[in-house]
């Protein structure tokens, strides 16, 4: 019995890495974040099957690998991740456990949004006294619609590589999405022209602020991943007293500090998910950005 088992094992070994990216009728796309799910639906169109691993209220950096993720990744033709180490706590192990050679990093079935655009906060010192820092750059690119349009173009190229027959359609859809982004960006620019600035809990919306030139007045956590002490909060309050702004935080961040700071400063405070609804498409994504823009514009 052992001999037969050994023979079977060595036979399997010789089969290693022969599997090639041969998409079935419909491309199966697995996105880590709802924003990327929305982008994938927009660019790949109705012919593709898109599933999203994380819900809009979940912290992509602290998520844990679940067996059901591995099952979904097993048959995926393409995994679309934000990348830049945002999902490093779970995605590498989920991909490895999915036993799917097509979606390993380095293969055409692995797509990282952050690898397609330039990143902010790049090249900071790799010193964890500065908190949970990631020297490759800030990964939260999906809150910038213009970068997302660029990611969409790259995604169209990748889809065309996986499914050459649909190439024209993917490129056309990416162009359409980019045009929609352009149209709405003009309106948002007008809306945010006078925005006085915002305080964030974590540097997770800086791409949006940077895109529209809205000043980042401060972050509630002093360094990434470390909650503030009372003294740090009162220092922030002192620094911001007399100014105008808005405080934004996301559902998985503690509401106490943002609420208290807003009360003390007399600012509005808005809790908004970082991600659009799980079933959003391109329009759903842009509506989600619209809500963030409206929140930034509500500063007083």
């Amino acid at each position, binding site marked *: 019995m*052992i001999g037969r*088992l050994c023979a079977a094992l060595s036979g*399997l*070994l010789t*089969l*290693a*890495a*022969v599997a090639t990216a041969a998409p079935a009728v419909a491309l199966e796309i697995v996105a880590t974040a709802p924003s990327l799910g929305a982008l994938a639906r927009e660019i790949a169109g109705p012919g593709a099957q898109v599933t999203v691993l994380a*819900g809009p209220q*979940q912290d992509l950096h*602290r998520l*844990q*690998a*679940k*067996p*059901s993720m*591995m*099952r979904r990744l*097993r*048959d995926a033709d393409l995994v679309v991740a934000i*990348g830049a*180490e945002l999902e*490093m*706590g779970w995605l*590498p*192990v989920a991909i*490895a456990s999915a*036993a*799917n*050679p097509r979606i*390993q*990093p*380095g293969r*055409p079935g*692995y*797509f*990282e949004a952050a*690898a*397609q655009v*330039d*990143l902010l906060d790049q090249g900071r010192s790799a010193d*964890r006294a500065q*908190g*949970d820092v*990631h*020297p490759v750059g800030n990964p939260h690119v999906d809150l910038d619609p*213009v970068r997302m349009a*660029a990611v969409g173009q*790259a*995604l169209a*190229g*990748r889809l065309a*590589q996986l499914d050459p027959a649909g190439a024209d359609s993917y490129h056309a859809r990416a162009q359409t999405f*980019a045009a929609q982004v*352009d149209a709405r*960006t003009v309106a948002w620019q007008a809306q945010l022209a006078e925005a006085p600035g915002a305080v964030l809990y974590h540097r997770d919306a800086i791409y949006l602020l940077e895109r529209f030139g809205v000043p980042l007045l401060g972050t509630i956590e002093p360094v990434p991943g470390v*909650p503030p002490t009372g003294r740090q909060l009162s220092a922030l309050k002192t620094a911001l007293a007399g100014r105008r702004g808005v405080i934004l935080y996301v*559902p*998985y961040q*503690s509401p106490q500090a943002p609420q208290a700071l807003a009360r003390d400063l007399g600012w509005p405070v808005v809790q908004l998910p970082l991600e659009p609804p799980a079933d959003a498409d391109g329009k759903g994504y842009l509506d989600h950005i619209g809500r963030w823009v409206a929140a930034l514009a509500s500063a007083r």
Partner: protein
Amino acid sequence: MRQSLSLGVSCPTLSSALLAVLLAPGPAVAANDPEIAEMRSMLNQMKAEYERRIAHLESRLAEAERESARSVQESKRASQRADDAVNLVRAESRPMTAPSTDPVAPSPAAGSGGVLGALSSGSAFNPQIAVILDGNYYHDGIEGAGSALVGAAYQPSRLAPHTHGEEATGEHEAHSHGAGENGFNFREAELSFTATVDPYFDAALFVAIDGDGEWELEEGWFQTRGLPYGLRMKGGKLLSDFGYINKQHPHQWDFVDQNLPYLNLLGAHGLQDTGVQLTWLPPLPFYTLLGAELAQGDQERFGAVVDGDQRALLADNAGFLDGENEGPRLWTAFAKIAPDLPERHALQFGASYARNNQHQEVHSHTHAAPAHDAHAGDDHDHDHDEIVHNNALAGYADIWGIDLVYKYDGDGAEGHRDFKFQTEYLRSTKDLSIRSSPHPEALGASSDFTSDGLYAQAVYGFAPKWTAGLRYDIFGMTNEVSGGPTDQDFGSSDRWTLDLTWNLSEFSRLRAQYARNDILVEPGERERFDAFYLQFLVSMGSHGAHTF
């Protein structure tokens, strides 16, 4: 700069350099390299692709100013890559594994599909290295004997004496996992190295260094990345996928110490062996993992082999105890099933079985000297009141287990309202017969030695960064010898454990733990004691991912 391209470097480096140069703006068609005809055709292909891209970019440039700004950035990035690649060529050096952020496949299509790799600072160091330090302050009410005692609860299947020198039945396992003294203990520093070897394999190495500086190889394996049909193969020294907690390293546990069933049935290291594993993720509607392992069978508890010192005790016996069989002697099979639940919930059921084809142990019993007159011919020392006889038993060992894990990802910050419940049941049966004995009539008598155990634990995030845990574990609900002349059930050992963990960050953790122990030491003899731990765990280096 461009001449350097004609240096004799290996093909992948050169072609990726060429690709990068081609992606760069300006008259990049500089690779007038007449030496490699193959390169030239690829070059032409790339050139065509490049021209198509230029045309595409130009149309977009016309479209919007913003778009144009972005493509300049893209060009800069490409140019940077070209410079990097050329520098690489110039240095005539080539990394063992190219950083995954480089343009990967030297195929013309790669240009239009964007960057294939993952952005990661970890990939700059290959392999990724992490070090976890694990130390504690321990105190129990029985002068520090408790931390070893929990792993030596009485069972009729006698524990093999540990090679670290202590006599008799393993009451002192001077071992890195768990056993500590009253006071400060440095349990271990765990070094881990993980890397992708090549397109075919991942590999990992885990080494533990205990407080005395003793090194121990915990795991060292390779695993396939490219097998089709949901198959994966792993080989080397590895922690078995038997059960649920078996493959976790001590720093992943929710409590300082291992639970009673694992400690007593599988030993401080669990099922850790050298062999191969094959798993299959079939295309069923929900997650199902089937796997089997074949391993050497070198185990402390589950398939022990009598060593030389013990063998010496059998010198005057009738019968003969075989030596160590050749491996592999151990095999396992396991299945894990996880239904598809809403996003915050995760549930997994598992069932596992393992068999070790060889297990040996030595049982000693005493005879009072006067009653021993019947054995008049024996050459025992009659000056003593008692005579010690050693029987050697041999046979095989079976163990099976079921497990259930449920995790809830709470909506609070930093693990607040996260919940985890985990339970496992293990049952071990050893079918052994007497192979060597001072009593020739006893040879061949066989008995089943059955012991089981259960643990159930729950951990709840009651505040951001803080969790509280409660565990109940019991060993020996069945703890019996049967099928032989002397059937007997010996009773159980159990324990309640409470802990409080403060996760200061993703990289450091402090934990306080209190346990109320009731351990069966010998038949009819119990030790009841309290044990208290204060533990620190800090992690340096790349933070890797943990599997479910």
